[in-house]
């Protein structure tokens, strides 16, 4: 998909600049964009490395597991048919808590494992189960406690207070998450979207 978008952007901008008589600007930015992107990467490097180091401590000391335990009662009602002690539910809680801590890279492997386990519970059907829909929708609405990369970018561009947007970010993403969950759960039960293959098999 990105292949088309990227080449499309380049073709459109060249056509546009010819059409608007902007070719001089275009060749100037063509030369400058290389150095500006390296500058961007270097300014991001500091905060990114610092936080992946600190978050590694959170993972190794078991703090993320503590988080997962705290969140599991909140996640229970979203997956009513799933056994509390099933591997799938454990993977889901680990994925969601890692996401909350902003550990996108740690979250993805748990998420993929959770999807595989849900797939087995759903008898390997080619149609998504209710649990899969809710889980993926939760992953597409990002609820993150500490948007570190975002703050790094803001700082790199001279923000006076890089973290001032943190509470608006929480509220905005909580609303998006709530809408996503309400839609996913209510459509799970509504007729046109209801799943005909409801899984009965529970994990051992």
């Amino acid at each position: 998909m990105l292949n088309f978008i990227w080449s499309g952007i380049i073709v459109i901008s060249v056509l546009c600049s010819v059409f608007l008589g902007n070719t001089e600007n275009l060749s100037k930015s063509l030369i400058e964009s290389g150095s500006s992107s390296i500058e961007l990467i270097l300014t991001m490097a500091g905060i990114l490395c610092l936080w992946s180091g600190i978050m590694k401590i959170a993972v190794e000391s078991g703090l993320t597991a503590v988080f997962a335990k705290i969140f599991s009662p909140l996640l229970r009602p979203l997956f009513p048919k799933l056994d509390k002690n099933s591997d799938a539910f454990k993977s889901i809680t680990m994925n969601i808590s890692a996401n909350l801590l902003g550990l996108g890279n740690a979250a993805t492997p748990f998420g993929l494992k959770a999807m595989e386990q849900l797939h087995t519970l759903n008898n390997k059907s080619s149609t998504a189960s209710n649990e899969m829909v809710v889980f993926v929708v939760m992953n597409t609405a990002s609820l993150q406690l500490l948007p570190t990369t975002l703050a790094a970018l803001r700082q790199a561009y001279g923000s006076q207070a890089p973290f001032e947007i943190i509470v608006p970010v929480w509220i905005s993403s909580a609303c998006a998450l709530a809408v996503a969950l309400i839609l996913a759960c209510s459509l799970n039960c509504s007729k046109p979207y209801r799943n005909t293959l409801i899984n009965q098999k529970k994990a051992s």
Partner: protein
Amino acid sequence: MEFIMPLFACIIVAFGLIKRVPVFDVFLKGAKEGIQLLYSIAPTIMGLVFAVDLLRSSGAIDMLCSFIAPAAEFLGFPKEIVPMVLLRPVSGSGSTALLTSLYSDCGPDSFAGRVASVLAGSSETTFYAIAMYFGCIRVKKIRHTLLAAVIADLTAAVMSVLTVRLFFGY
């Protein structure tokens, strides 16, 4: 609010000490992974910053914005973030590139800069996540996943404007 991050770092390190984790060694291991991550995404960022720079200097973004601006203005939306709303669900690095160009144009502490920040923090690369999670188990019929996810993205866009207006008094 500026105190949240240092406090969080302190709690994590203190918890590590209590659990007798070799905190500094682990920190180094994690920081190294951070560098590796950066190394692996650097070419993507370069390529997309290049494309977005071209798009910006060619005047195409201004043209797109001027098309959508009346509708955006009517809804109280800063017109500068329209391209980001469109690209955000598809490409994370692409929208980061747009975000940085917006920061250098308007400044991160401007109205548009703040709205764009909140939007970037409260939405995800929806299409990518859906493709990855359902792709790995080869499930084709995803039912209403996309519908719910896209409406959530729209909610995030609307809420980012509302919360910034509320918190910073525009």
